[in-house]
């Protein structure tokens, strides 16, 4: 299935400055693997060393948080949009 993955601004520098990337996948896990396969530097920003999605990064399929679906086994359909939404705080150096 061709799905669009929207790259959030703070991570675009690691994804060739693109705001979205199209990948072929059947589940969220496959989509993210395809994404980090192409853009290796993204991996450490999305996943911790034990391979789990970092807790300050949320992933949505269309408008639903995958934590309330089937997590990374959530299936995706043709034309779905996967959004990566990291926490941002603006402002100071901390």
């Amino acid at each position, binding site marked *: 299935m061709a799905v669009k993955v929207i790259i959030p601004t703070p991570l675009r520098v690691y994804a060739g400055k693109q705001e979205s990337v199209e990948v072929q996948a059947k589940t969220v896990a496959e989509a993210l693997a395809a994404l980090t396969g192409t853009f290796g530097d993204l991996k450490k920003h999305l996943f911790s060393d034990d391979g789990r999605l970092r807790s300050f990064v949320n992933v949505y399929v269309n*408008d639903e948080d995958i934590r309330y679906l089937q997590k990374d086994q959530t299936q995706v359909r043709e034309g779905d949009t996967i959004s990566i939404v990291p926490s941002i705080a603006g402002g*100071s150096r901390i």
Partner: protein
Amino acid sequence: MVTKVGVPEASAKANPAATLSKEEVMRYSRHLIMPEVGMDGQLKLKAAKVLCIGTGGLGAPLGLYLAAAGVGRIGLVDFDVVDSTNLQRQVLFGTSDVGRPKITAAADRLRNLNPDIQIDTFETHLSSENALILKDYDIVVDGTDNFPTRYLVNDACVILGKPNVYGSIFRFEGQITIFGYPDGPCYRCLYPEPPPPGLVPSCAEGGVLGVLPGIVGTIQAAETLKLIIGKGDPLVGRLLLFDALAMKFRELKLRKNPDCPVCGTHPTQTKLIDYAEFCGIRGEEAPVAATNVPEITPRELKTRLDRGDDLYILDVREPHEYQICNLNGHLIPLGELSRRVHELDSSREIVAHCRSGKRSADAVQFLQKAGFRKIWNLKGGILAWSDEVDPAVPKY
């Protein structure tokens, strides 16, 4: 199930004799003639008490529009001082305010806009010790700029039962939602943990389109006013994402996490904690992602260069930063380093630098892992070079 509730009725009832003076009727006439606000709504605004945490990029439009709308009592929390880099977006302040405490400049501006309202100022760093400031207000608006304070505000609002109108920005993107409703999610439902320091750039590092906090802060003001007058659909359980470059709004669903340690069905955290520790920041140390990296100070570098040493200067900043000022280094932005490492000669002595020394510390760590042995990080970056060696180099 989200309950649509306005400001607790207690506020309006506590001041049952509240009316509008003739001048107020004139001032708020454009509200009064709208059925959605009307006299009832305006009186609710007059009785409302809103605490604005932060008077910077988000706080500026927020404070201005709440004061303009006639919110009867506005609390302002900020310990910072106006500096010239703020003026690109913090429109509460003018050039003549540079050097003044933000809280004083903000209060002056808002009192000038609306002398009829009460402005409370708290020139302090919000902390677990003084978070009870929130208690006297009906609604809290989070206009802060760092993770520890966001978690503190969130937890305090949940514990005290206050809605938290949240807005955050990065470069040209914003997020807005309302946390802290009894049936709604809180910040921790969305992000149980903060990013480790250094992993998510701040505005000072990533930059921000000046108008962006203006848009996001104004949306926060709109949501606050809606909560007070009890009209419209508030952003509870809804995360509004805004992209100023694409000029698009998107919306994602936010769900309350039943296992949330703060707002879940069985909360395990019912008190405020040490948020600096929670966010991995110890004391006043600048968080640097790479530690134990060999360093060279600007003065040492200057001495060696003047001596004619053959040093290769590697600049890991972005091209637009190079245009502002540079040390004639070889530019390889940090994000491209892994792909362009072959451009570097590991037999040469290399000094890596960036703006403040953080990105270049990452670069040095990466290059060490790639086998480079003669590599140093310029401590403090080009900012320190300007301070210690050549003041003609502009700081940004």
